[in-house]
């Protein structure tokens, strides 16, 4: 008997050409799910947790019981899982593709780090439980400190800053405390024009006056320019300099030692923004260059992931001149083990007598969860692996520079870069296509764009940082794609496709003007 269960199992050939895929009935598109807001799908009568029953006791809430509706809809566990999985699918991530975001160091996030950070001895300990019960945690902090000090050639460390900008604040506070201790009224901080915005913001927050220093034609700061700025303001007014090295244009500050000398000779301090430490770790020690304070971004250099914008961690290393002013708390070794000194007024005689901490930056001891991840990363690499990683990062950036140098202009000329390479949009000037358009077309090609319009020192900046995590195959595809896009733009045939991009994304270009003119910062039900 004929078996009639057979059916066609290959795509039907069609002569019709469906140029534009139709909008779906459901709002979803295949694997791409549209997800309403929690407030549209959740319910005040829903929950995704089963809590144990409580014993009825008297209420001692001082007559302050909350009786109103709070406005917190719940979801059952399956609904919640689906809500957040669908949201996650609308994000680009380093795990899914190339993410060459300049100055952000989007490198691979080893999963061992996540596993280690979740060990109960790290994640389930309280910052105020007896120190005798957390000696392993203190040892971990000490071990991480040792690595960071050895890698930088510095004297002491403040672990507690919660992010890079917090680290800047910490380092500049140590400088301010040192100036106060010397009864100095120095109040001018030199900041190069290419600096990240946090640098002048930090200096201004602490009451310093910012004096801008221009960069030279090669994109780096001349020691002579620093000297001129010192003389113009008067050496006795100079509190210090904030310099990023490698700088935000991806260039090593060649005259960094002479700059340090000039600032030191004037009586000031040298703050180094260590955001780009990934380019030099295991190879160049900032302490040997004359740096007095430098923060790390553990979430960049040591891959303690970025998590969609935090949490970060920004430990600061200090030179001998500034060590005494490190904030509370700090680690101290004794025969009984490690102590975290949380206060100097505690009458303990074993506190170092010269310590003059400038105060406290945060409630507890900083980002322990990030320390574990960073140490896990560092131990996995070892000194050899860290040096190889910075070497590969620099190799990859220079490879991209070489492949694109005939198509895109480098604002400071073609020269060896560090871990990232900077182009501007001048070669596209007559095409009608801008840096923004290139970035948005890259999105349609399946890449995360490079950093755009930063640094501000050139027009239409494109800052490409591949990191050491990318293979040659991956970089080649990016280079070929970008090359094709630029050629297409220069040919001038398809300008509209650039302005309309992206089209293959959950949302198309968003109206930032409308968002800023009439800010809607929270959900309001339309029936209100």
């Amino acid at each position: 008997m004929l078996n009639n269960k057979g059916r066609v199992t290959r795509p039907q050939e069609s002569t019709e050409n469906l140029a534009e895929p139709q909008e779906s009935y459901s709002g979803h598109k295949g694997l791409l799910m549209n997800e309403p807001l929690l407030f549209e799908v959740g319910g005040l009568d829903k929950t995704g947790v089963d809590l144990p029953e409580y014993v009825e006791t008297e209420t001692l809430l001082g007559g302050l019981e909350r009786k109103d509706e709070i406005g917190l809809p719940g979801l059952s566990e399956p609904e919640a899982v689906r809500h957040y999985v669908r949201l996650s699918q609308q994000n680009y991530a380093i795990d899914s593709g190339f993410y060459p975001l300049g100055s952000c160091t989007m490198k691979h996030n080893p999963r061992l780090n996540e596993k280690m950070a979740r060990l109960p001895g790290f994640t389930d300990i309280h910052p105020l439980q007896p120190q005798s019960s957390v000696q392993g945690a203190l040892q971990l902090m000490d071990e991480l400190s040792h690595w960071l000090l050895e890698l930088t050639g510095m004297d002491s460390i403040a672990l507690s800053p919660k992010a890079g900008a917090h680290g800047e604040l910490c380092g500049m506070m140590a400088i301010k405390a040192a100036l106060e201790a010397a009864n100095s009224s120095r109040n001018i901080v030199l900041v190069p024009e290419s600096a990240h915005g946090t640098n002048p913001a930090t200096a201004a927050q602490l009451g310093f006056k910012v004096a801008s220093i221009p960069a030279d034609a090669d994109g780096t700061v001349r020691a002579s320019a620093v000297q001129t700025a010192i003389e113009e303001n008067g050496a006795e007014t100079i509190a210090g300099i904030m310099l990023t090295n490698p700088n935000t244009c991806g260039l090593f500050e060649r005259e960094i030692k002479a700059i340090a000398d000039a600032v030191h000779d004037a009586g000031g301090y040298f703050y180094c923004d260590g955001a780009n430490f990934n380019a030099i770790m295991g190879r160049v020690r900032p302490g040997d260059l004359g740096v007095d304070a430098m923060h790390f971004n553990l979430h960049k250099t040591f891959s303690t992931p970025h998590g969609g914008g935090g949490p970060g961690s920004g430990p600061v290393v200090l030179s001998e001149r500034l060590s005494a002013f490190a904030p509370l708390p700090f680690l101290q070794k004794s025969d009984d083990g490690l102590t975290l000194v949380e206060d100097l007024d505690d009458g303990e005689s074993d506190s170092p007598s010269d310590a003059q901490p400038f105060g406290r930056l945060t409630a507890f001891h900083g980002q322990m969860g990030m320390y574990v991840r960073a140490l896990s990363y560092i131990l996995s690499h070892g000194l050899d692996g860290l040096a190889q990683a910075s070497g590969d990062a620099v190799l990859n950036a220079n490879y991209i520079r070489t492949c694109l140098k005939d198509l895109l202009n480098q604002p400071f000329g073609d020269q060896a870069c560090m871990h990232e390479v900077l182009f501007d949009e001048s070669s596209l000037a007559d095409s009608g296509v801008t840096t923004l358009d290139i970035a948005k077309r890259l999105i349609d090609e399946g890449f995360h764009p490079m950093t755009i319009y930063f640094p501000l020192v050139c027009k239409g900046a494109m800052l490409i940082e591949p990191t050491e995590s990318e293979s040659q195959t991956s970089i080649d595809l990016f280079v070929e794609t970008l090359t094709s896009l630029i050629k297409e733009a220069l040919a001038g045939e398809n300008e509209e496709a650039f302005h309309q991009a992206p089209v293959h994304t959950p949302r198309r270009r968003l109206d930032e003007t409308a968002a800023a003119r009439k800010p809607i910062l929270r959900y309001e039900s339309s029936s209100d």
Partner: protein
Amino acid sequence: MRYLPHTDHTRRAMLDTIGVASIDDLFEQAGAPLQQPPTSLPPHKSEMEVEQHLSALSGLNRAAGDGAFFVGCGAYRHHVPASVDHLIQRSEFLTSYTPYQPEISQGTLQYLFEFQTQVANLLGSEIANASLYDGSTGCGEAVLMAHRITRRKKALLSGNLHPHYAGVVKTLSHMSSFLVDQSEVVPGQAATADLIAKIDDETSCVVVQTPDVFGSLYDLREIADAAQAKGALLIAVVTEVVSLGAIQAPGDMGADIVIAEGQSIGNGLNFGGPYLGLFACRQKYVRQMPGRVCGETIDADGKRGFVLTLSTREQHIRREKATSNICTNSGLCCLAFSIHMTLLGELGLKKLAKLNHSKAVQLSKALSEIEGVEVLNQSFFNEFTVRLNKPAEPIVERLAEKNILAGVPASRLWPDQKPLDNLLMLAATETVSDAHIEELCTGLKEVLDA
């Protein structure tokens, strides 16, 4: 090295394309002075070796889950559903950056928008930002914001504000030449007379924590009225946000700015970090608010979408005129908070709060029956203060030897205030069992009698 994709072969090929002989040559061309690497640092290790080493360090710590545990004072141990940690580890959340390209970051942006709404509702305020580093740094930022709004320079802190929070405010204020005044410390009481008396025409803001560091709860309306009568703002601080499932929200009681430590929801103790600063305020102050904020808009097709907005307040545009130097938020901790809050919902949060209060009342009853122990609080949520008949710190140490983590001795937070030496702050969350309470009471009796 398992994390590096290049082989010597690909490195060679790429160097040839660039036209240099070695990676070292690239550094030299770039002007970077290569130095002898320090020799005391070891070479790379296998995954197994790293795991063994770090597990050994972890094993030296006494985890909260290893026995009776009553430690609070700004960080609280709550049970976090398994799905929270699973979801925040999804690649697309864990390994993405700040949502600078909104077309491919709608996932992060939408949860931030939902988070901001949850936080504003929970704290009883009109709007909230996308989080700051933690509660204490949020407190410092709130004070600076109040100075900008009022154009005044003096903050008045409640004496019962967590001393570490006060420390952060004092450090920031000293460094920026602002003034700080503080009312007297009154353990176990929501005393406001001294605080209100200290408000004057130069006060920019009054900072009050509720529940305070000793656990007492405040009706903020009286302080809000007094502050506002003098042209000052009321900043309310909440370090235990689960309490807001049971007690009235500070925003609803008249606080102009509410900051909170959000760790309790979705996030572990983590020895102090990463935590989550919740920051909410009145709509009219939005342009003075620090930190990132996400807003709703539409895309080119008219579909609803979300973007980071109002960024002209921030350092990358405003540089030295920014509202704050803050650049990052606590992204993944926000997400954990938001998922846990979604799982709880209003029903779950209210029940969780009841459960916590009930545990704490049981604990206070049990402790008050012990000779040499006096419960000071008239009101509290899940944490309160007792006065022992001898200094608390050695007692806590001895109990730790018995594997009981009894709480925070006041001397840990006020090392130079002798009158507080006998005080002990204890917290009881839903994770505390009846057996733990019994163990603590038995242990405490033994140690006090010894």
